[in-house]
């Protein structure tokens, strides 16, 4: 067991995220690691290839901050709201810089991570056939099924240089309990060369071992552990705080212009030292509004003779 994985966000980003890396901040709507994204912006990382099925607001911010040279994605919208305006501004107008795109469907993206995690050469998937997407993306190819002779669409493995995965709770080595929407968290962790886990709570190893089926990510794929409560706002953490749907709608207004976006960023990203200061800036009213009602699961018996 490696010692000393527990560290700060500043240190984790500084050690593991390099200019030019392919970065995957995991989380399908749930547990999007905004705190890590903000620290990457504060440390002014450049030329990143940002991979995520749904770039969401977090990549919209990183694109506006000039961290990104390419986005690998499957749905570049603000879910339930509309466009990701910073993504579109960079792609359509080159503001603040031109970005490349590499596009898949959701099955394509999650299949790429699965192939990366399981070290497969490629993954056949029943999609893409008949779509105009494959001609635009040379990474989406076909192979002949050796059993039936039919053509089938294949996608290549995705192996990010570094991933950030947020979890509800983990121990100091990174054994992580996750519940609620588990998205592409496990596939991303196993597919990536370096993994930073950020957690709402750091708990004793015995608590993790009391419920091993809930451990989505084991310690030996984890390189750094950061205790970071409220790391995912305006996304959410099941059982800890709800999705700030109001902010998702406000983002549409904030990002109407590059300048208005940067004013928001100057206040909420560059104007704070770390996530703790960000949370301090949030109003009590907002925090209370996001606290969920309790809905506990029944305990199970893991006993043996």
């Amino acid at each position, binding site marked *: 067991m490696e010692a000393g994985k527990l560290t700060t966000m500043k240190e984790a980003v500084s050690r593991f995220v390099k200019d030019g890396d392919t970065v995957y901040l995991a989380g399908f709507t749930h547990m999007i690691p905004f705190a890590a994204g903000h620290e990457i912006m504060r440390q002014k990382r450049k030329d990143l290839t940002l991979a995520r099925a749904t770039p969401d607001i977090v990549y919209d911010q990183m694109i506006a901050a000039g961290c990104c040279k390419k986005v690998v994605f499957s*749905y570049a919208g603000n879910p339930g709201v509309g466009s990701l305006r910073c993504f579109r501004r960079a792609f359509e107008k080159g503001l603040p810089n031109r970005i490349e795109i590499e596009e898949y469907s959701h099955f394509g993206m999650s299949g790429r991570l699965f192939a990366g995690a399981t070290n497969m050469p490629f993954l056949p998937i029943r999609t893409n056939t008949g779509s105009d997407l494959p001609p635009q993306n040379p990474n989406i190819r076909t192979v002949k099924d050796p059993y039936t002779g039919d053509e089938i669409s294949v996608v290549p493995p995705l192996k990010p240089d570094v991933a950030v995965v947020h979890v509800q709770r983990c121990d100091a080595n990174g054994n992580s309990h996750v519940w609620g929407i588990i998205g592409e968290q496990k596939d991303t962790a196993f597919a990536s060369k370096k993994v930073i886990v950020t957690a709402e709570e750091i708990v004793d190893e015995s608590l993790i071992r009391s419920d091993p089926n809930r451990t989505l990510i084991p310690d030996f794929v984890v390189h750094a552990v950061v205790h970071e409560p409220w790391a995912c706002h305006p996304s959410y953490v099941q059982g800890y705080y709800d999705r700030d749907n109001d902010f998702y709608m406000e983002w549409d207004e904030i990002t109407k212009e590059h300048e208005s976006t940067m004013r928001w960023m100057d206040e909420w990203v560059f104007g704070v030292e770390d996530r703790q200061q960000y949370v301090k800036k949030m109003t009590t009213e907002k925090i209370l509004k996001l606290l969920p009602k309790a809905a506990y699961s029944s305990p199970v018996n893991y006993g043996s003779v």
Partner: protein
Amino acid sequence: MVDYSSSELMVVVAARELKDYESVLVGVGIPNLAANLAKKLQAPHLNMVYESGAVGSNPTRMPLSIGDPCLVTGAKSICSMYEQFAYYLQGGRIDVGFLGGAQIDKYGNINSTVIGGYKAPKVRLPGSGGACDIASNVKKIIVITPHEKRRFVEKVDFLTSPGFIEGKDKWRLLKLQGGGPYAVITNLGTLKFDDATGEMTVVSLHPGVTMEKVQENTPWKLKVADKLEQTQAPSEREIMALRALDPDRT
């Protein structure tokens, strides 16, 4: 007779298409309301599945996104994103999938990627998300969309999600496991697809709507079913159940 808006009419008509015990892949907004309404009325055992991996959800409020926490509380099961697409969709476990898009054409192909060319588009849209995967694998695709000339086009600018491509003959060659487009429900009527050719065909006109009005809002000459029906107006029971689900009338 009860008053209703054109969105309420679309929700009610879509809900009627869902059968008890079917599994339906639901999006947010109108499809979510339609599925929840069907569950309250004729389909209490409807299995609502979301592409975020929530299976058998029982939301007590309207979700803004398909990954909303209210879809998790009280769900039957939660699986990973890969499992959702591999086990449920590719596994052939989903009967009905709701799709939307900026454009739909006469063979039910859907565009949610770009208006204009791909490399330098007039409008860059969000892209497929799960749409292409859903269209390729569900037994029935249902599209709910306002009936407007800019949305109904003879040929989509970009084919994100396959309908019947250029007709059923071509579509059969692709050997997709899904059943293809089943219904397009608009504010003016219901359109289904010709069994032989796969061409979109008007099968029912909503109350007060003429065939001329539907044609005026469609840029190609529409095929009309031999027996063109009149959509039954929403009943008071349907509208009351819908408003109870969505008191804010989102």
